[in-house]
């Protein structure tokens, strides 16, 4: 299988990429390419130009700035999985990164590419939602900071404009909160049928705050607001009762992997498991 013909440019800087995008409605950025190239091989995607941003300097790595960790958009899953700063201060990102695809995919795929692709079955969007992360984008008019809650607009649709380049993702230092990403699939390589990202502040078995986001329970990742509300102040059996609200307000898809009703069940079961794990159980 061979993609249709296209032009290929290597961007030396973010500005150069923005300029190329501005001049071509059908151009697309390519990072690792592991979401885009399969679509191009089946010719479901046929961009007229690919702009390779994987070699733009300064877009990789994780840096701490006070209470914030700045992750370069071109940082690969493989590097996120192993990054010592992330593993210490925001381990849920490393944990989710290690569950994306397979080792070969993780050697190529990047966090920025995944966020921009906006696949509702991808792992990292729900994690960023649960973390109240910020997506940093640069366009012709300068830099824009987009809250994760505003970024995932629809099915394969992000809030990024055509001529914007995603340059970084900012996540909080989680000191004092527990977190877990629990993913359910049939094969390790598969996308999540459902997954749950949980960030939980707790003390003595009682939850003070739980932020819970769900993967593949709708056209975008969604927060489990009802469950979150019921988790606040909960302990013991009340946590399980709160988890049973996790599918409220969701609109899960039906596909070859699972039906909606089953996904709702998974959201409830996995929410409890994620919260329990975040609390150190």
């Amino acid at each position, binding site marked *: *299988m*061979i993609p*249709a*013909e296209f032009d290929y440019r290597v961007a030396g800087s973010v500005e150069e990429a923005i300029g190329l995008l501005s001049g071509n409605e059908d151009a697309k950025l390519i990072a690792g390419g592991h979401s885009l190239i399969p679509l191009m091989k*089946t*010719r479901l995607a046929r961009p007229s130009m690919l702009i390779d941003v994987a070699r733009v300097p300064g877009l990789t790595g994780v840096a701490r700035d006070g209470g914030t960790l700045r992750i370069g958009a071109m940082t690969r899953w493989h590097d996120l999985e192993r990054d010592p700063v992330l593993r210490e201060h925001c381990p849920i990102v490393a944990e989710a990164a290690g569950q994306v695809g397979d080792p070969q995919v993780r050697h190529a795929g990047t966090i920025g590419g995944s966020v921009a692709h906006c696949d509702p079955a991808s792992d990292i969007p729900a994690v960023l939602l649960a973390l109240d992360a910020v997506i940093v984008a640069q366009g012709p008019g300068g830099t824009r900071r987009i809250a994760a809650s505003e970024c995932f607009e629809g099915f394969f649709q992000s809030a990024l404009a055509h001529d914007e380049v995603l340059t970084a993702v900012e996540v909080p230092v989680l000191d004092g909160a527990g977190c877990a990403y629990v993913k*359910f699939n*049939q*094969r*390790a*390589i*598969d996308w999540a*049928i459902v997954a749950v990202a949980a960030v939980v502040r707790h003390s003595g078995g009682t939850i003070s705050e739980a932020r819970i986001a769900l993967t593949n329970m709708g056209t975008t990742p969604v927060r489990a607001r009802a469950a979150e509300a019921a988790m606040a102040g909960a302990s013991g059996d009340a946590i399980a009762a709160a988890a049973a609200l996790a599918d409220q307000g969701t609109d899960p898809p039906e596909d*070859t*992997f*699972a*039906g909606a009703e*089953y996904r709702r*069940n*998974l959201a409830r*079961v*996995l929410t409890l498991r994620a919260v329990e794990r975040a609390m150190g159980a």
Partner: protein
Amino acid sequence: MATTEHRPNIGATPRRKEDPELITGEARYTEDLTPPRTAHVVMVRSPFAHANIRGIDTAAAKAHPGVSDVLTAADLEGAFAAPLVCAWPIVDDIKIPPVYPVEGTRARYAGQIVAVVVADSRAAAQDAAELVEVDYDPLPAVIDPEEAMADGAPQLFDDVPNNVTYHWRSKEHSPVPSAGDPDPIMASAPVVVKERFRLERLVPNAMEPRSILVEPNASQGEYVMTSATQIPHIVRTVLTLITGVPEAKLRVIAPAVGGGFGSKLQVYAEDAICLALARRLGRPVKWTADRTEEFVSVHHGRDQWQEIELAADADGKLRAVRVRIVAGMGAHHLLLTPGIPMLGAWLYGGCYTADAYSVEIIGVFTNNTPTDAYRGAGRPEATYAIERAMDALARKVGKDPAELRRMNMIPTDAFPNYTIMSGLSVDSGDYTGSLDKLLATLDYQGLRREQAARRASGAARQLGIGLSTWIEMCGLAPSRVAGALKLVCGLWEACTVKVMPTGTIQVMIGVTAHGQGHETTFSQMLADQLGVDYDDVQIIAGDTLTVPFGMDTYGSRSLAVGGIAMHNAGEKVIAKARGIAAHTLECAEEDLEFANGSFTVKGTDRSFGIKEAAFAAWTAHNLPDGMEPGLEATYVYDPPNFSWPGGAHACVTEVDTHTGAVKILRYVSVDDCGVIINPQIVEGQVHGGVAQGIAEALFEGAQYDEAGNLVTGTMTTYLVPSAAEMPSFEVLNNPNAPSPTNPLGVKGIGEAGTIASPPAVINSVVDALSHLGVTNVERPATPERVWRAIQEAGQ
């Protein structure tokens, strides 16, 4: 002095001869070959499951740079002397509508070829294929075989009412008498269980997609086809029928072939198209399937609705088995399509005894890819039905499933040559022995105690133990039986053993490998037989020009049929060498004993080696009067019976009742495959077979939408499992029942794991949940299906 015979190779595990080129990337698969001037072919396939073709506009595609031609059925009229071949018309009144390699008027499945693009590069051909404009008039489609035979269903062929292509009844069509008539027993027996199972379609997914290269010598009218096939000889014969290229001028080569599992036991439309194009264009023509294309164009497996009824006494003693199968054929017949369900019709009674038996099979056309042989071919289907039903019977009469099986098994002392309820004669077996060994290895009672404890505690994760005690008929097969079952061809096998003047040995054999390790296994056998070194034996196969006419590889026949042909050819070589030795040593042949590669005059130290005999046969200076020079022999072997492996498998699962996820904790097998030549290869065959069976039980199934499109048509949606989803296996052997049918006592192992394992897995899942009221989970038992079964049982 008597000579001690050494047989250092049989039973040993030398390094595989196949491996060096495979682990270094030096092996050549068909797709690796691209001679100069090769034209690349891309097929244009119907996107509709059922549609009339009103017209095809190829102008834009033809005008695309690099394109040499774009051809439709109309353009290829005259290229084909006959339609695609079905070689197994299993009843006299079967309906086999003619279907040609390129369809011109009506597409009957999504994926059927409607046009062919030929270009100088793969990319140009792919680009141009997008430019072929086909005007379709879509028609209603039907995918489920039961729905397809209902009144009012869409009709695939005008002259095939209700899409029923055949109706096979054992009472009417079996060439051997079954045990009695089950009908009266079903009406009166104390216990009757009736189970209904859906066996979804499976897509074989050999790792190497199909690939074909045809190189013509146009001026001589000669063609060399290199193809990823299991059956070079049959491909050659059938392509002669379809294209009219004389069989003597067509050479078919199977180079390194990346797995088959039945999917390359076929003569496909693409084979005929590539040969026809090479003849038309006078240049090499190559086609390689994309995986996505392979999903809709390679034949599928299974696709059955099964109803099985068991009648028994109150204590569970089996009295009668009655089976009705509705089998999906897909849109038309291919080489063996109709016969595949019937290949299982002899095994629905399993390894048990009963007084009465009948099977009926209704073959139905449906708007999807044709079905045909897939690892086990009919036998996994039969084993699934009887082994699931035996568990249902055990639950009904309140007996442990192991105990119920044991009390109904054919006793070991009934052998050799016991006639099973379907009327066939089984060579040998030790079913209770295999079961006993299995239960001991498992610590069966210990597992039952753990299961009881988990049930009592109400744990989220419940334990299941599933058994499958199985038999199969393999080593296909006696040609007379094949004829009685209306298979058009015979099933003998041929081999030539040639001892070279310098003592190395070439073996030319008709069976051809695609992963089975023939070179290794056959070398081990012949080395011991002739008393030469393993490395002195060279196995040559997979080329119709250089090996004797054979019947190729499928049905676990390579060892039990091909291996015996080689053994018997080896005996002829020894006999001839004995004559040379006696002549040279000036003694009677009867005075010679042969061991370790040398003839010795009994009671003396005078000897003459087989390599010396080969040299003497080559110089021909001093041979017995009338003896032909050269030391080689050919044997064509037609076995007197099938071979009948059997065994006992157990699967221990942990089922997460909250999510429905199934985890295999242990998988244990005890198999009798006859005498084992290479234990490592046998274990490898069991591992792979069991894994494929686990895959069909838990992961794999072709799903279609309302319009008849395959929606699990890639490896991302059709879940071929990886190492991360598979357990390790505990593989044991039962050596107590070597086959009495052949001189080596061998049976076969290629399909055993796939036949045995699906019911063991599903029985285990059901067993884990039976206390909740679950009696069935349809396969593949996906987490959702398991969860639903729990929900429905709880209501």
